[in-house]
């Protein structure tokens, strides 16, 4: 219920902004990924986080394709997980291979 309210609030806010300023705010979330067809998106979130870091290592964080991975994992992952994983990456104890 609370989640739904939050979404609804964001939706109203975006529309208001668009009506007022005519700004081009585009609302989007992670697209459907055939590798993760089920409701549980944990590994989708994980895969995009790992892909972002692999991408950044190769092309740099600011590269457009890396930004895509970041957008997807930011949409999918709970913030706590991302914070935790970022700490682990920094400490060199992240369990994924980057």
């Amino acid at each position, binding site marked *: 219920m609370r989640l739904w309210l939050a979404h609804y609030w964001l939706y109203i806010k975006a529309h208001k902004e668009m009506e007022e300023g005519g700004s081009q705010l585009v609302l989007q979330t992670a697209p459907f990924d055939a590798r993760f067809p089920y409701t549980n998106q944990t590994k989708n979130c994980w895969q995009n986080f790992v892909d972002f870091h692999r991408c950044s290592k190769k092309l740099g964080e600011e590269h457009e394709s890396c930004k895509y991975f970041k957008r997807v994992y930011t949409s999918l992952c709970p913030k706590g997980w991302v914070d935790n994983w970022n700490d*682990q990456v920094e*400490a*060199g*104890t992240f*369990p994924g291979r980057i």
Partner: protein
Amino acid sequence: MAARIVNRLNWMSRRFYAAAVDSSKMTLAEKEAAESKHAESTMKTWKNVSIFVAVPAILICAYNAWVKEKEHHTHPRPEFLEYAHLRIRNKAFPWGDGNHSLFHNPHANALPEGYEDEDH
């Protein structure tokens, strides 16, 4: 189901021992003697398997394990990394100081704080 399995086992052993001779015209003593004789030949088979298959197999595997372990001990142990999923201590072990696992090996097993000794 269980009844069928037990019956089957009994049937198998009966068939097994009676297979060599026609048992219908024998007395109980004769049957027992025949069974005993058959069991003796089966015993010899398994004795031979034990001596000529099992013993060499164990020796070969023992030699193989010896070589592999010797080779393995020349490698340095992996560096200690504080992974969150390793060395979990949600609750103290009920023995000792509560921080060492039951088969703790100071050389191979790190504590949450790291290895206890230097690698050698």
